[in-house]
């Protein structure tokens, strides 16, 4: 099968692949990193709220009050929920996971603390929702319950989506640099094509002329190192090649 390619195309493909690899890797990295950092920032915000609520709960527990007997707990939760526009709901629950006090819009189907029941502190950043929580201990060191704060998952997803769109858009735009790069590669190796085409044509003519003396060389000069020496070497060998071809032609003639 005859596929006519040239070195420019091969190098161009290689350069395109390299740029593609780098752009894809960088874009992916930026997207992943942003997700990481963004979640971290949200997490820290939620931690501030959790720590504050925990202090109030602990004071109540240390007075010997049960979780549902701590005065003003619903009011405390409501104040925190109002104080931050992206907080959707806050729940204080007992060790079995049943809510004891809540504030905000509570989604009965979303109880993230249930999946983290063994852990001191947890966070969840998923399509199901965004939330963080802490366990609370009583004065005996045993589980007394937990606090869970839910963040506006739609806002989180929307911000992520918007940023990802921007990043991937930038990546796509960056890929456009392949075009000038390949054009430049083409320009670098352009002469080579002409040089070897001329060389090929010259050998062709020699063959057709059966090595006759009078075939002028119409060779091109190359300025690329390996090829320059090659063209020079060909020039030196041209005469001998012509002789050889003539000899074979004559030998053929004499044989027949």
């Amino acid at each position: 099968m005859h596929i006519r390619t040239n070195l420019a195309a091969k190098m161009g493909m290689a350069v395109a692949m390299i740029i593609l690899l780098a752009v894809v890797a960088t874009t992916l990295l930026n997207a992943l990193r942003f997700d990481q950092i963004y979640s971290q920032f949200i997490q820290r915000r939620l931690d501030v709220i959790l720590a504050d609520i925990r202090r109030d709960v602990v004071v109540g527990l240390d007075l010997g009050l049960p979780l549902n007997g701590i005065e003003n707990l619903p009011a405390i939760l409501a104040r925190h929920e109002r104080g931050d526009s992206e907080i959707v709901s806050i729940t204080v629950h007992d060790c079995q996971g049943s809510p004891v006090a809540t504030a905000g819009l509570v989604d009965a189907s979303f109880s993230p603390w249930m999946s983290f029941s063994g852990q001191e502190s947890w966070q969840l950043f998923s399509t199901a929702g965004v939330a963080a929580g802490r366990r609370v201990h009583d004065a005996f060191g045993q589980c007394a319950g937990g606090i869970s704060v839910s963040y506006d998952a739609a806002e989180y997803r929307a911000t992520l989506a918007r940023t990802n769109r921007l990043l991937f858009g930038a990546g796509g735009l960056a890929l456009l640099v392949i075009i000038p790069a390949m054009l430049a590669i083409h320009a670098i190796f352009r002469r080579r094509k002409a040089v070897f085409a001329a060389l090929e044509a010259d050998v062709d003519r020699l063959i057709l002329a059966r090595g006759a003396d009078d075939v002028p060389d119409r060779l091109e000069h190359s300025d690329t190192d390996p090829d320059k020496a090659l063209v020079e070497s060909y020039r030196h060998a041209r005469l001998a090649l012509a002789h050889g071809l003539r000899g074979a032609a004559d030998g053929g003639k004499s044989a027949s």
Partner: protein
Amino acid sequence: MIARRPFLTGVGAALAMPFLAGRAGAAAGPFRIHMLLWRGETEVEQGFRAYLAEHQVPAELMVRDCNRDLGRLPDFLAEIRRERPDLVYSWGTGITLGTVGRWDAPAEAQPIRDIPVVFALVSAPVATGIAPPGGQAPRANVTGAVHVPPIPVQIAAMQAYLPLRRIAVIFNPAEANSVSNVAELRAAASAVGVEVLQAPVPNGPDGRPDPASIPRLVAELARQSPQLLYIGPDNFVGNHRDELTAAGIAHGLPCFTATELEVRQGDAMFGLVSRYDMVGRLAALKVKQILVDGLVPSAVPIETLDRFSFVIRLPVALRLGLYPPLPILDYAEIIR
């Protein structure tokens, strides 16, 4: 020579194990608990009952009040040996020592050995000999709730309020409890570079410690510029706490306490305490572990609360001009 008595004690304990493990699984009516009290029911017992009720532990509580007279104890103990309740609850060091004796005493000197005993409000179980020191095996039938925070924790609480270089303490040298407490205080304080100035109360003409000496002792201590006066688990000082705190305030010295009443009802400025009802709850938790969860008492550790109450008497603080630092205000209980 093989020490026979400890060996026998060990064997005896092993034999008594089936009796000491709770009747977990045997659902024959409520648990019978004899409660040996010193001065009637206090908040400790309230917390105790509340915990049992909240956790649905079926218990029949037989209250036996000594009414500040240890002479009544032997009758109660005889009753216990007859009735054989599931568990005995004892209030305070005196009653507990009377009930279970010292850990290293011979068997005859340990009245109740085969029924689980849970104590509350013993301030220093190891110093008073109720519990063996660390490194030794725990007693087979004794555990309980200690209400006094460990001394290093107390010192940390003092340091959280004000920078500490010197602590002054007035104590009754006749009370062994108090003496050992002061010794422990010295050791823990020197570990963090704090000096302890001690002033034992001298005896008066009647041969008993003299309360009139308190103001003079405070004045002498104040000349050496301590940052605070420490009130330990000392009965004499406890009975005369008002004289002590007033003398302290007169010299600009706050009092720190490790027991509730001095700051709730007295004029100590601050303290790291266990609320009595929490101590009762802790004792009830241990009772639950023994009777319901089936643990042997030796597997239930003698311990204090995990978190203590930092209590501040605000008027005293304002008067002395020693304002509580902001971080403490987050969790302290303020008495106005």
